[in-house]
């Protein structure tokens, strides 16, 4: 019987993957629940103890791997998981249930975990939701080890596509490596840790597809399209062959694009830099020929602690990134806690101000290792930006007193709030540079809610395009650099439009740098300007997209088709 289903999720990491499914922690009522004889209790307890110890060993190994790859900053995330493996309320309680209710270990694990999670889920605070996730992740680890499946036994005879509800950080670190060639998760968003790690490790991924519509078994063929966000379960042979071909061609394409130049058809030089979240992405950025780091998102180091690390810890990390990229410039974006408006550059409480200063000091101190720039997110008023600049000056003065050697550091701002784009001319008098975040700008312009999952605001909406045009024009008139670092820059269809508006600097995920250069080489800036003028007169995002497909298609059509975009 052939069962086939197509899903649409968020394209979280580009590339195409085809392979047999490997289900992680997704059960379709097949978890064995059975009662056991009195005489079998001791054996069941031993089996459970064995699973706990091998699961713990696996997380220890993941912790070491994480420390090796990313330094000591992130590893403590896994301490919580390790401690849970030795916890009386969890582990001893499970053993008690096995003993007293005479049920098998899988059932006991689920019972106890449910009991512990229920009160957490009833509480709306993100803190308790997160803890509920932690326990859920530990349950999945334990169940996997009870099933006798261990990572050391993962099939080495060929590529697999992981399908999971979500990956715990431990799993993500460990499993996003060969033979895993692709990832599909039911949960997750573009900025969830799973998506970030998939991009870092270059594994094509689609996240947030929602509950799987059909039951699929390990080994069934799955096709992951990390360009379009499409997933095909039970893909037919011809689809698989076509996807294999695309994958191989994309690999060859990346290889051939490693050292190409970003010059348009009419000879305009363009700069393509990389967005990164982790130190380990520096290597990928360099390999793909990025001309710098256009957006270094620093929130990842606060994962699971909600607070930034200390100055020295940040400095150590920043120095590595800056010296790794030298002499290219690294643009740091200060902490941007989504939804936590208190951490904007304005209206800071004393504590938040102290955190921001800690980060700014660390960035300024790291400037000695290479070339550094600093920018603030979510700036909405000129007064806020002036406040942020004053804070930088305060830090600089303090550091000078401590006779630290500092290089000049440009101080810029993200243009991602409509007010900033509307007043771009005024902001340009005070900012050393702009970086446009197209996702957030579209989001705020079109009044989307962050919790609107499944749909994203379209930056091609003419209202957003008007703001993009206004921003770049103001920057050009003021003579300050203005880069585009949102999703629009990484979209092979929309990138031509941005060139038409006058954008000459882009920053995209490290893995998308070669593709952006290939698009740029196929665009004629003069022709694109005419398209851009016409786009401003369109009535909808769809009309704009149609216009781009028609007018840029003759030069870019082949490339788009290859990436499955049209």
């Amino acid at each position: 019987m052939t069962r086939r289903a197509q899903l649409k999720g968020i394209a979280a990491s580009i590339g195409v993957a085809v392979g047999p499914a490997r289900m992680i922690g997704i059960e379709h009522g097949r978890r064995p629940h059975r009662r056991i004889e009195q005489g079998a209790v001791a054996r069941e307890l031993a089996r459970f103890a064995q699973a706990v110890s091998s699961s713990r060993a696996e997380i220890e190994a993941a912790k070491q791997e994480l420390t090796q790859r990313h330094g000591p900053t992130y590893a403590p995330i896994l301490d919580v998981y390790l401690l849970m493996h030795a916890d009386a309320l969890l582990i001893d309680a499970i053993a008690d249930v096995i003993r007293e209710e005479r049920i098998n270990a899988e059932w006991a694990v689920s019972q106890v975990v449910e009991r512990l999670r229920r009160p957490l889920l009833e509480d709306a605070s993100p803190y308790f939701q997160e803890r509920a996730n932690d326990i859920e992740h530990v349950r999945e680890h334990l169940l996997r080890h009870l099933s006798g499946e261990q990572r050391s036994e993962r099939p080495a005879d060929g590529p697999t596509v992981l399908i999971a509800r979500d990956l715990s950080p431990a799993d993500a670190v460990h499993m996003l490596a060969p033979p895993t060639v692709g990832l599909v998760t039911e949960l997750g968003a573009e900025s969830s840790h799973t998506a970030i790690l998939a991009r870092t490790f270059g594994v094509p991924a689609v996240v947030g597809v929602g509950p799987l519509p059909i039951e699929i078994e390990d080994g069934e063929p799955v096709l992951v399209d990390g360009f379009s966000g499409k997933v095909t379960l039970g893909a037919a042979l011809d689809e698989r062959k076509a996807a294999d071909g695309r994958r191989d061609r994309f690999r060859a394409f990346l290889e051939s694009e490693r050292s190409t130049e970003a010059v348009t058809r009419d000879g305009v030089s363009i700069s393509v830099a990389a967005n990164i979240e982790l130190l380990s992405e520096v290597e990928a950025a360099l390999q793909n020929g990025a001309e710098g780091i256009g957006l270094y998102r620093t929130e990842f180091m606060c994962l699971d602690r909600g607070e930034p690390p200390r100055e020295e810890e940040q400095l150590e990390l920043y120095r590595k990134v800056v010296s790794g990229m030298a002499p290219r410039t690294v643009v740091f974006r200060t902490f941007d806690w989504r939804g936590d408006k208190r951490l904007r550059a304005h209206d800071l409480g004393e504590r938040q101000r102290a955190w921001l200063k800690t980060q700014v000091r660390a960035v300024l101190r790291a400037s000695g290792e290479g070339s550094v720039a600093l920018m603030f997110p979510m700036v909405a008023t000129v007064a806020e930006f002036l406040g942020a600049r004053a804070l930088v000056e305060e830090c600089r003065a303090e550091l000078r007193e401590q006779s630290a050697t500092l290089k000049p550091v440009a101080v810029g701002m993200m243009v991602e709030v409509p007010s900033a784009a509307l007043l771009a001319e005024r902001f340009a008098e005070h900012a050393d540079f702009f970086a446009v975040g197209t996702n957030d700008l579209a989001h705020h312009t079109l009044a989307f809610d962050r919790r609107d999952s499944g749909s994203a605001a379209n930056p091609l909406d003419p209202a957003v395009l008007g703001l993009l045009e206004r921003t770049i024009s103001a920057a050009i008139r003021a003579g300050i650099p203005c880069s585009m670092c949102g999703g629009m820059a990484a979209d092979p269809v929309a990138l031509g439009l941005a060139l038409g508006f006058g954008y000459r600097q882009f920053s995209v995920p490290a893995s998308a740098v070669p593709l952006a250069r290939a698009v740029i080489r196929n665009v004629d800036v003069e022709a694109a300007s005419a398209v851009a003028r016409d786009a401003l007169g369109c009535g909808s995002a769809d009309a704009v997209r149609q216009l781009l497909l028609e007018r840029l298609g003759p030069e870019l059509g082949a490339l788009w088709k290859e990436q499955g975009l049209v």
Partner: protein
Amino acid sequence: MTEVLSVTVEVKNRLGLHARAAAKLVNVANQFKSQIEVSKGEQVADAKSIMGVLLLCGGQGARITFRISGPDAPSALTALCALVADGFGELP
């Protein structure tokens, strides 16, 4: 009768006993032989149990109380107070 040492301290970091801080607290508690109880308001937990401490979850400014009894109670008290005063190693 075993002597019980008791001290109440204020959790200073913003998220209080968030997961990472809780892990540190439990790791420190586990270095000692003494029995260590941590409580906040009515809630009481074993300081050596991550689940217990996570469920206790102090918000910012929360006051937590340690009750420690056992052979190495004084050094446990010192170590735990130092950890909390230090903001679990996370104050700037």
